């Protein structure tokens, strides 16, 4: 484990060094390729004057709210699709279609419907995550081997008990991967929304990125991209990875040789 961490760190140090060397070679104008040191100075500045922190808070608030609602809606709707063919043939089809729609495509619609408001942000994030959650739950529950349900029924398990203690845990690996996918879509759509929608109620990471472009401040663009990337990585490593590792070790599907 330590060995792997060291390798990762060395890799990133190497990338940054390479970047600095390219900068020093002056192959491109420093306006297009600033030094990693400039980016670091910018980031230090925005950390010190709290700009970055408040932007991160605004963005995270939006994602938690939107993604949370996406999950809360997606879970029951996915269950309905998995059990009742009526919902599968109606809602399920819509979900399948809309899941393939890139989430940035919701931006014009949201702008016209809600104007430049928080509601527009909220709407875009929900639309980005809801469909993939529905589909993942639907597939997950349908993949539950009937023998588990049969065995549970012969032990006296019925209706709600079967749902809570058999269907849900049996489908959990699928549900978690659906949640992960939903998160990825939600995150992408929020960034798109923040870049496109200028609103005064909150200045998110996407806005910082947008203004970096307006001001031609490449160190800001790169710095904020880095922050967005790091948040994405952290969520994966801190929220989803532990759950996935646990599930894999329970189910015996662990393929990595740690």
């Amino acid at each position, binding site marked *: 484990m330590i060995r792997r961490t060291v390798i990762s760190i060395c890799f990133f140090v190497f990338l940054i060094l390479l970047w600095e060397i390219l900068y020093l070679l002056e192959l491109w104008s420093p306006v297009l390729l600033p030094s990693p040191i400039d980016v670091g100075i910018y980031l230090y500045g925005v950390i010190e004057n709290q700009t970055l922190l408040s932007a991160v808070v605004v963005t995270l608030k939006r994602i938690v709210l939107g993604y949370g609602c996406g999950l809360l809606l997606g879970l029951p709707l996915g269950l309905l699709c998995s059990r009742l063919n009526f919902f599968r043939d109606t809602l399920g089809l819509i979900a399948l279609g809309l899941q393939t729609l890139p989430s940035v495509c919701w931006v014009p619609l949201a702008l016209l419907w809600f104007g430049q408001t928080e509601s527009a942000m909220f709407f875009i994030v929900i639309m980005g995550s809801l469909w993939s959650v529905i589909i993942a739950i639907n597939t997950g529950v349908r993949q539950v081997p009937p023998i588990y349900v049969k065995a549970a029924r*012969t032990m006296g398990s019925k209706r709600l008990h079967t749902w809570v203690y058999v269907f849900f845990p049996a489908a959990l690996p699928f549900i978690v991967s659906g949640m992960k996918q939903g998160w990825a879509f939600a995150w992408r759509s929020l960034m798109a929304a923040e870049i496109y929608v200028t609103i005064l109620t909150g200045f998110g990471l996407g806005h910082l990125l947008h203004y970096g472009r307006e001001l031609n401040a490449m160190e800001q663009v790169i710095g904020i991209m880095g922050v967005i990337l790091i948040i994405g990585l952290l969520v994966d490593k801190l929220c989803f990875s532990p759950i996935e590792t646990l599930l894999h070790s329970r189910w*015996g599907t662990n393929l990595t040789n740690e």
Partner: protein
Amino acid sequence: MTLHQPKLSAKNVFKFFEMQGHRIVALQAIDLDIHSGEFVCLVGPSGCGKSTLLNLMAGLIKADKGQLLLDGSPIEEPGSHCLVMFQEHALFPWLSVLGNVLFGLKLKPHLTAKERLEVARYYLNLVGLSRFEKAYTHELSGGMRQRVALARALAPNPKVLLMDEPFASLDALTREQLYGDLQRIWLQHKKTIVFVTHNVREAVCLGDRVVLFSPHPGQIRNTYDIDLPRPRDINSVNLAVHSAQVTDALKGYLAKTEECTV
């Protein structure tokens, strides 16, 4: 209620299936009484309806005609009165060995948590897996999994234990061990067991009574009382004599069926 009321009985049971527009008679006029503490093996080739009968007894499917009675009252739905042990172990991968055995016990509201734990540990000990109570299914061998499945099926103390080819997917050595374990447990507890298998020798080894089925339509052909001392060894000569007798009869019925269908 009479004194000699059977534990489990099938009365003139029919079951049909639709297959590609044809009606298949899976079970035809099945009459069978199984008494308390009896170990009955249903044996026959695939398609003879023996598993269907087991599913009917479990309440997982409904008969098209006739009745299935447990202690004189009709079996309406599945429940812990008739527990089933399947060919695939059907253990829940998200629960530990102990959790699996506790699953059925937790559905018994009159037990306290402490009692449940005691019962679960008692049965895990009975199948020799006390040391593995924290393990997960994928960490166990095939034979161990079926042992856990056996403990899980026994723990809620069902009136009848239904076993659907539970050892069919195991290797021969493990299977022989489990024959020994099952007989030992049965001798201790005198549980009523209905055991489905296509292996005549296995049936003769385990059963007090062997019920021979033949297919197309699925029906009972004969029953054999196996009066051999226990525990029985699957490789013993006496057992071979009995099993040869059943196998010969089965071959005869199969030949006749083929003549009819050709």
